[in-house]
């Protein structure tokens, strides 16, 4: 172990930790990322868990990764390629399916099969959501100004936002009406929101999926509409709301970041779990590893979620009680499961015909918003959903590197799965039973699915927590609800990537603007650190 002292050490090598590290290294600082596993990536990883197959075994699609970060860190040079994909579909029990296409006219006709009015309403829905995306986009890059503070920086930040909101050219001069709309959108349930546009159950169910993925909210829960926006505000090459695959799996993103970091002189200290952040006189100055080694740095940045950081690696005695209590109360509830499946062949669907581009995108199983709410009720009762919302995709259709020729990899995201089961907690048998239940659901929509499964990795929130370190297995490092967003994320008064401990910062998805493989928390944290060091933050991101 080299006894070097770093300018900055980042605890945790997820995509945000790596992003922060890259920006700091590019600014000329001596930087290290300390990672528990032998590989970096956090929840953006590609893992060969069955010989010949690559699994994006946590996050599985890419849209939110800010293009400015892609560009700043030269991720293309380090091998990253994002492949856009076409369409999505929702399969119904009665053999019908709703398909969504990127072709505007085809999409209109697809919806019109269920309702002409909905096909037309989709245009208005698309426009309204797009407007919300435009409103939120500059916020992603901002350190949230604290509305209770009178510091010039906060006042300037608020002014800047107000100015942007009213700007004639960017957003076209938003008025009262748009402010009303925005507040409603951020606080409504997705069910109520969609109800204002659509009449067809399947159209509503298809669109509502984005509002519950990863979230311990049901479609009837206030605040769920915002989660839909969170999934829509990404882009692939300027197409807002589009999703793509990262070639080689999601791990290609963090691999490229790691390569960019090394090229800028940064160190990655892998296989080194941090057990404690060293604090003296309310200042952090280093970390202790599991093997007892110590690494010292002027500044420390935690990529861990806020609970893991302050309940596990920072000692309670170092923290103000109110802060500690706020951390304890931070909502970070596990609600999702994941299956990664190696397939011998392509699944044949009972409803979606072969060759239909909608079948190459994300495929959902759900009947209605009511069924989704029922699935949420199961979660509240401490059991996995009997009729879960299933979001499947087969990246190997578009990405030739994921599976051997003629074979396929399927990622299956499952909503809802509780972190704690009511009937006595998770066991190995229950985990397998859960996997069987989900595969049974999928199998009932396919002619051949049950016969082509070669291997399946079954993950409950427990596995996600154990492997990636996300508390309770919450994929966003904390719920995306208004009480935990913007200047309240993660803790009111500590939304600017700083903590009560001097020289200790946060850069994970627990911070603004939240989860998803976006990189924005990491970049924002880097900017704050560089400002504190009176150094230039060079970026296309400003």
């Amino acid at each position, binding site marked *: 172990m080299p006894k070097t002292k770093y300018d900055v050490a980042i605890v945790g090598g997820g995509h945000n930790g790596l992003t922060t590290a890259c920006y700091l290294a590019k600014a000329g600082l001596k930087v290290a990322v300390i990672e528990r596993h032998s590989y970096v990536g956090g929840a953006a990883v590609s893992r060969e868990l069955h010989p010949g197959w690559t699994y994006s075994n946590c996050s599985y699609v890419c849209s939110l990764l800010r293009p400015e970060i892609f560009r700043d860190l030269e991720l293309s040079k380090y091998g990253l390629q994002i492949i856009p994909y076409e369409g999505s579909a929702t399969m119904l029990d009665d053999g019908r399916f709703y*398909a969504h*296409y990127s*072709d505007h*006219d*085809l999409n*209109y*006709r*697809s919806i019109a*099969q269920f309702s*002409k*009015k909905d096909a*037309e*309403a989709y*245009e*208005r829905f698309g*426009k309204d959501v*797009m*407007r919300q995306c*435009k409103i939120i986009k500059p916020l992603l890059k901002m350190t949230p100004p604290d509305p209770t503070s009178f510091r010039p920086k906060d006042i300037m930040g608020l002014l800047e936002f107000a100015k942007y909101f009213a700007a*004639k050219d960017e*957003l*076209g*001069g*938003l*008025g009262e*009406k*748009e402010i009303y709309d925005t507040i409603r959108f951020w606080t409504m349930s997705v069910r109520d929101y969609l109800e204002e546009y659509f009449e067809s159950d399947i159209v509503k169910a298809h669109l509502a999926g984005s509002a519950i993925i990863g979230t311990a909210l049901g479609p009837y829960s206030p605040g769920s509409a915002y989660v839909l926006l969170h999934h829509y505000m990404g882009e692939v090459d300027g197409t807002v709301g589009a999703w793509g695959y990262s070639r080689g799996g999601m791990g290609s993103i963090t691999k490229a970041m790691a390569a960019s970091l090394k090229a800028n002189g940064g160190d990655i200290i892998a296989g080194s779990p941090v057990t404690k952040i060293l604090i003296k006189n309310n200042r952090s100055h280093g970390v202790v590893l599991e093997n007892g080694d110590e690494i010292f740095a002027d500044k420390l940045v935690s990529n861990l979620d806020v609970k893991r950081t302050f309940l596990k690696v920072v000692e309670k005695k170092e923290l103000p009680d109110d802060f500690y209590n706020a951390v304890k109360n931070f909502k970070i509830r596990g609600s999702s499961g994941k299956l990664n499946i190696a397939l011998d062949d392509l699944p044949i669907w009972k409803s979606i015909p072969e*060759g*239909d*581009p*909608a079948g190459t995108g994300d495929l959902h199983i759900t009947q209605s918003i009511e069924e989704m709410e029922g699935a949420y009720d199961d979660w509240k009762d401490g059991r996995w959903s009997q009729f879960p919302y299933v979001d499947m995709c087969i990246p190997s259709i578009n990405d030739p590197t994921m599976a051997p020729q003629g074979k396929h990899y399927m990622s299956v995201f499952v909503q809802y799965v509780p972190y704690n089961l009511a009937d006595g907690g998770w066991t190995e048998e229950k985990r397998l039973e859960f996997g069987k239940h989900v595969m049974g659901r999928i199998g009932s929509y396919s002619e051949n699915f049950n016969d082509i499964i070669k291997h399946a990795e079954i993950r409950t929130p427990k596995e996600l927590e154990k492997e990636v370190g996300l508390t309770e297995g919450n994929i966003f490092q904390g719920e995306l609800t208004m009480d935990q967003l913007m200047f309240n994320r993660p803790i009111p008064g500590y939304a600017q990537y700083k903590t009560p401990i001097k020289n200790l910062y946060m850069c994970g998805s627990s911070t603004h603007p939240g989860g998803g493989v976006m990189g924005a928390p990491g970049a924002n944290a880097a900017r704050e650190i560089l400002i504190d060091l009176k150094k230039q933050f060079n970026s296309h991101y400003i």
Partner: protein
Amino acid sequence: MGNSFSFTKPLLETPFHERTYEACYNNDWYRWAGYKIAREYSNTELEYTAMRNTAGVLDITPMHKYDIKGTDAIKFVDKLVTRNVTEINSGQVMYIIWCNEDGNVIDDGTVFCFNSNHLRIFCAERNLNWFSDTAIGFNVEVEDVSDTIAALAFQGPLTCKILNLLNVKDIENLKPFYFDKFDLNGCKVTISRTGFSGDLGYEIWCKNEDAINVWDSLFTFNRDYKVLPAGMNALEMVRVEAGFIQPNADFMSAEQALRPNRVRNPYELGMGWLVDLNKNYFTGKKNLVNLKKKTLTKKLVGLDIQGDKPAIGSVLYDKNKKEIGIVTAGMWSPSLKSNIAFGYVDKDHMKIGSKVFAEIYHPEELEYKKIWAECSVVKKQFFNPPRRHKVPAEI
């Protein structure tokens, strides 16, 4: 129409497709409301000239068509649109616009009155939801009949003559903005003396199964009177000459604009004459009353531009080089031998005769020639020949 849903066919084909496909030598298609419509059949200039010299045939089937049926049909349309339609007669057509509650224009179109219990609205954008919402409380049914009616625009100085030669009885006495049922080559059709060309012309509405017969009949006398199918490029030329504006080209439809300040009210579009503030309550009236009192800050005007280089997409300036607006449509007019355009100007340049300047970037063999062209503000209706209005029409 053989148009059942298939992901391999994102675009629908109209009932005329068999013919338009044969005639479209360039295989150059335009998307119009999910249909495949020829952009250029073989030569835009000739297609344009046919509409100004003989006759041109345009497939306008993609036009949206909404049947309004019920005892409140007229009352409903009167609430929907800015114009007073209560006096509409059977067989009459009115040009209409409708606004949202803010008084910004959603779309324009025409309303046909079959009888007081049955009207039909034709328009460019989809309006089923807007109409259905407005219809609540009226004894009226709104039905989208777009796919059940095939339509051709037959435009040009010889159109009446040709219809007459086809034994369409008494067609010459059909007045502008009227329609009737006729027999055309054995098919029962509806013909209106309307169109987008600003010239003598008709629109022919028929059943899908009669479409090919109707199409063929219009070309019967081609040896003597050269009728050409005309594409969307040629249509764009005649509509600008005629001074007709289009949603999402010259203004953003109020229900579709992403940016709130991109919407326009009727006064800004020069459509104040279509707004009757003395009639009963209609959608947008309250705000239009206020807007009428305010000084306009921008207006869409006609521009007569120096030189011969079309000012497509040009920014407009005042004489001090201050930006005052933008050109929404521009072209060299073969009929007028003029460089014409529609553009937005600010409040100091709305009057006819005002001078503004267009910055035109004209591509010339990999270099742009930057032209600073003086423009006179003129009426948007550049072309309006007497034969357009004459009754009986010229045979």
